[in-house]
């Protein structure tokens, strides 16, 4: 029952998100423009035809329901800028992005969490300040600069993209888990564990992490959405053929069917991750 309710909520978010995205795109400036129009070789007739195609979409509700109707047959429409079925485009690029995000989330967590742990072990020492500075530095360096620097050492653009997304996640994971771990370390049972003479690793893995696990998992859910949004600049800068790059191209060419489909995808992934984390937090709270 709870599962069905969650499913319904996700579906509703996706539908409403799609409609709003549709409206945002159609009413944005340049929606009816087409880069091909600048070509002096085109005749007036062709221009007319291109215009007509796009002006249909400005009748919001009817065109959105047309889109949904197509969707119910598994048809996401055809991308206007790339001239290919959206479903094909998505299925071509999905694996790339999912692999990137998957690896990046793991890597980002490893880095962020270990940085947080180092800082927790060395509270008050210069090492802690250095850790905080490192996370600030990662927040402050533009993704493009990071990407170009990485390419000097890493040959593969896909690997570089993983690192860019991971390094974007690291400071966020660090900030929250650092706060969380500090809190955890401040609780009396940790004091007692120390008084028992337990080693720092044992305390970490048996006394600090398990109680914080629920919240860390919640954060992990959110970091999937974070990774998704960080993958857009990473893929654009590094020309990695994934969803992020596709989204950027679609935005620049006001490719309505593609953009609405991508909104669906982002809403689906984001809302599902959030629902999952909510569920875990709730479980943690009720147990």
């Amino acid at each position, binding site marked *: 029952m709870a599962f069905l309710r969650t499913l319904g909520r996700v579906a509703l978010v996706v539908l409403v998100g799609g409609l709003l995205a549709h409206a945002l795109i159609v009413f944005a400036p340049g929606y009816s423009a087409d880069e091909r129009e600048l070509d002096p070789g085109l005749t007036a007739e062709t221009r007319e035809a291109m215009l007509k195609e796009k002006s249909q979409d400005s009748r919001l509700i009817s065109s959105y329901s047309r889109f949904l109707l197509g969707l119910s047959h598994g048809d996401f429409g055809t991308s206007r800028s790339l001239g290919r079925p959206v479903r094909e485009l998505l299925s071509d690029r999905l694996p790339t992005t999912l692999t990137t995000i998957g690896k990046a989330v793991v890597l980002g967590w490893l880095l962020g969490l270990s940085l947080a742990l180092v800082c927790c072990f060395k509270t008050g020492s210069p090492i802690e300040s250095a850790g905080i500075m490192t996370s600030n530095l990662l927040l402050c360096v*533009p993704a493009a600069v990071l990407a170009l620097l990485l390419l000097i050492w890493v040959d593969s653009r896909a690997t570089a993209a993983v690192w860019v997304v991971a390094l974007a996640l690291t*400071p966020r994971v660090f900030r929250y888990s650092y706060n969380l771990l500090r809190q955890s370390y401040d609780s009396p049972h940790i004091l007692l564990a120390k008084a028992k003479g337990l080693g720092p690793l044992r305390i970490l893995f048996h006394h600090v992490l398990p109680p914080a696990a629920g919240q860390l998992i919640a954060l992990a859910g959110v970091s999937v959405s*974070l990774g998704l949004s960080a993958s857009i600049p990473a893929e654009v800068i590094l020309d990695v053929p994934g969803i992020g790059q596709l989204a950027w191209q679609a935005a620049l060419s006001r490719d309505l069917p593609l953009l609405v489909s991508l909104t669906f995808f982002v809403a689906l992934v*984001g809302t599902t991750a959030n629902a999952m984390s909510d569920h875990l937090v709730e479980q943690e709270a009720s147990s």
Partner: protein
Amino acid sequence: MKRLPEILLAVLVLVMLCAPWLAPNGYEKQSRDFIAVGPTKDFLLGTDALGRDRFARLLFGSRLSLLLAPAAAAVSVFLAAVIGALAAFSGKRLESAIIFFSDVALSLPWLFLLLTIRGAMPLDIRPEVSIVITFLVLGLLGWAGPARIVRAGVRLILKSDYIFQAKAMGIAPSRTFFRYILPNIKPLLIAQFWISLPVFILSEANLGALGLSVSEPMPSWGNLLKELESQTSALEHPLANWQLLAPIVLLVAVVSLLQLSQQRLKGSS
């Protein structure tokens, strides 16, 4: 020595306020005979591709970004605090409505709203005004993610004894909300603030590709950082033009100094 962060910050602010005197070249003067030169006596950080004094651009750009990015971060964190706390504190129905809207908000391509707003502004609007609006909108749009985190935090607080105590004393819910809940999620909000500060500065730069950032010839931290991207192009050693790193160094320094002073304040309170 304990006040060092504050002193350094004050010095930085002072330097930026004195920009017109410290950098007499101004940020838009093009010295076309000195294109992309390295640091000299006249140009402390060298010049950019149009022969403009980088040092001046850094100072003037800092004034803009140092004012606007924290403002945007504050706006988004404030919204997140109120909305997130309200979600946790209010009834089931309002809570699920808020969660619903935050989910929707997180998945929308807000870029198009920014484009629309920019498109609706008159063309000859002053760059300062347009950038203020851009930052403001960025701040207004940034509530959804942090609001979820705030909500989780408030729910923890709601279980605590002092909220129970407050209820037992018959304190009105609104007062409980503003006096007992909001002050206690401060650490969460502060963490969020520090994360979003550089993020807003960088998103301003990234919006440049869509013409939504500050326009020529105004400098901002965003477009100064952007300069790094083409220059690091690995055609040279990234440190060959160290003066280009100045904006990053300054940004990291300011963010860290602000954090240090805030931590110290927290420690002594």
